């Protein structure tokens, strides 16, 4: 017994340090200081006569969608609690649509479908719309109190794989977009709305997307 205990003692003595995950599975750990400010979305004006049908976003992102972290003062782990939200992708879809419309693009939403070419009904097909389908591949919303920051911050991440097709299924654009950033907590700003509008800002500033939906920059 003595030998066994001694062997255990020797095997386990000293100091061992490792870096297991400090966030839920599939969440990323944000370095708040290195995360850019999201800022206010600036949607450029576009001119487009071609109808854009935006399909309801689907998702491969997981739950929990995020967590509350207190990195200044904690007993066991900085992660205080985790958050569940089932319809995050649909919420993002609504806000991206609003953002695209703010640019002047004529956008209709396909709630019941994902803007599948085979499912476009005759009256809409006759207008030869461009069909935009999107899959949310990452969505995260954390609330963080960081010891290096003077104010609490909200941090968000959105990644979307986007496909633009015509009604015959011909692909005009296939591209992945990513939005990541922070803003100071104010109790009013809706992170998912901000992420959706920032994605719309990215899309409407991207010449490849503008060309794919048959639009042009106003005045350009």
């Amino acid at each position: 017994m003595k030998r066994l205990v001694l062997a255990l003692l020797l095997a386990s003595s000293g100091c061992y340090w490792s870096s297991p995950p400090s966030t839920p599975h599939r969440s990323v750990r944000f370095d708040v200081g290195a995360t850019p400010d999201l800022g206010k979305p600036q949607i450029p004006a576009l001119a487009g006569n071609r109808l854009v049908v935006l399909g309801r976003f689907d998702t491969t992102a997981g739950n929990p969608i995020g967590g509350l972290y207190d990195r200044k003062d904690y007993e066991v782990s900085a992660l205080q609690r985790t958050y569940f939200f089932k319809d995050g992708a649909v919420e993002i879809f609504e806000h991206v649509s609003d953002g695209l419309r703010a640019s002047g693009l004529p956008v209709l939403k396909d709630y019941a479908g994902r803007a599948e070419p085979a499912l476009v009904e005759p009256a809409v097909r006759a207008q030869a719309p461009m069909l935009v389908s999107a899959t949310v591949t990452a969505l995260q919303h954390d609330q963080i109190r960081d010891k290096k920051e003077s104010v609490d911050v909200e941090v968000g991440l959105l990644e979307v794989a986007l496909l633009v097709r015509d009604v015959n299924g011909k692909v005009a654009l296939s591209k992945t977009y990513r939005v990541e950033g922070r803003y100071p907590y104010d109790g009013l700003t809706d992170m998912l709305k901000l992420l959706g509008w920032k994605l719309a800002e990215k899309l409407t500033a991207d010449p490849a997307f503008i060309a794919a939906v048959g639009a042009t920059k106003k005045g350009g």
Partner: protein
Amino acid sequence: MRHLSVFLALALFGCGAGAPVRGTLLGPEIPAAPVPRTPQITLAVPSVIDERPDDEHEGSSVRTRLFIFFGVGVHIRREGNFLTNDFTVGPDAIKELRGLAIQHLTAGQVAKKVVATGAADFELRLVAEHVYGTHFAANKQTVVVLSSKQSTDAFVDVQSHNYAAYGNVTLRAQLVDKRGAGAGNVVWTEHVTGYAQRPAGEQRILEVQNAVQLATADALATLTQRVGATLDRLGVGPSGAPMVLASGSALPATFAIERMSRYRDFLERVFVDTSTGRVLRHEVMPAPDRYSSRPGDWVLSRVTAEGLHLSGDGYEAFARALAARYDLRRVDDVTHYHFFGVRGAT
């Protein structure tokens, strides 16, 4: 030495979540169709393809962040994620998934017959991209043993933080038309997800396994809705053969408007007398397709007063005819006209 044995035993003590048991996806009762259905086609569901990432097969456990042995004591900090593996999700999970998909689609009356193999009008191909349960965990333990010739005292401090358990299921679904000239055409592709959350507690692994079962049921309920909605749009769905309004035919005496509830659980449908604009009947039902329209907005229903589903062309003709008296505008939704009441009334 006896004292050392005591605190080593304490220090090596696990986190107390209980030993994992073999998992299964077979969980809650499968619900029947919430509204009467008239399926028109047959559907085959071949074997589900397993594309889960390696970590979901292997699983993971909470790991040691810091271990310090300091002569008369031990301090351990542990943190990380419990993640199910093939055993805790269920060794037969992918087979069970297919069986459950067939049961859900059958109970939802999406098709006249849902079969595992054999000829059918449509084929539903499923790829399992994610099927897992997880919870975060963190705990720390400090054990100090102080002994003298007279007595032995031990100081033990254990702190832990329990987090909710989550179930996640992601299926990539494709519906393939196997009929006639268009045989082999993929008519619909979508990632169908199911999520569930269970409370933090002592039975953490069991709760994670429950969450996976609930997430599976959630994904398959959504799959049933989505496949039904897709078939409806093709005119061969469970809402029955679509009604086609002939050009110049008399308007139906009654039409319906509807709105989705805030949380997409219920659909509110109001039947209106076409000639007077008076409300005749008001119904609230479980939403047959929770994503069919925007919550809170009144839209012209694609269902007639008799419960017949309108085809795309039929809906357009119906809306055009009603537009002489009612304010109908396509402002937001490509498959619905928004309803703003009687013209000139506001």
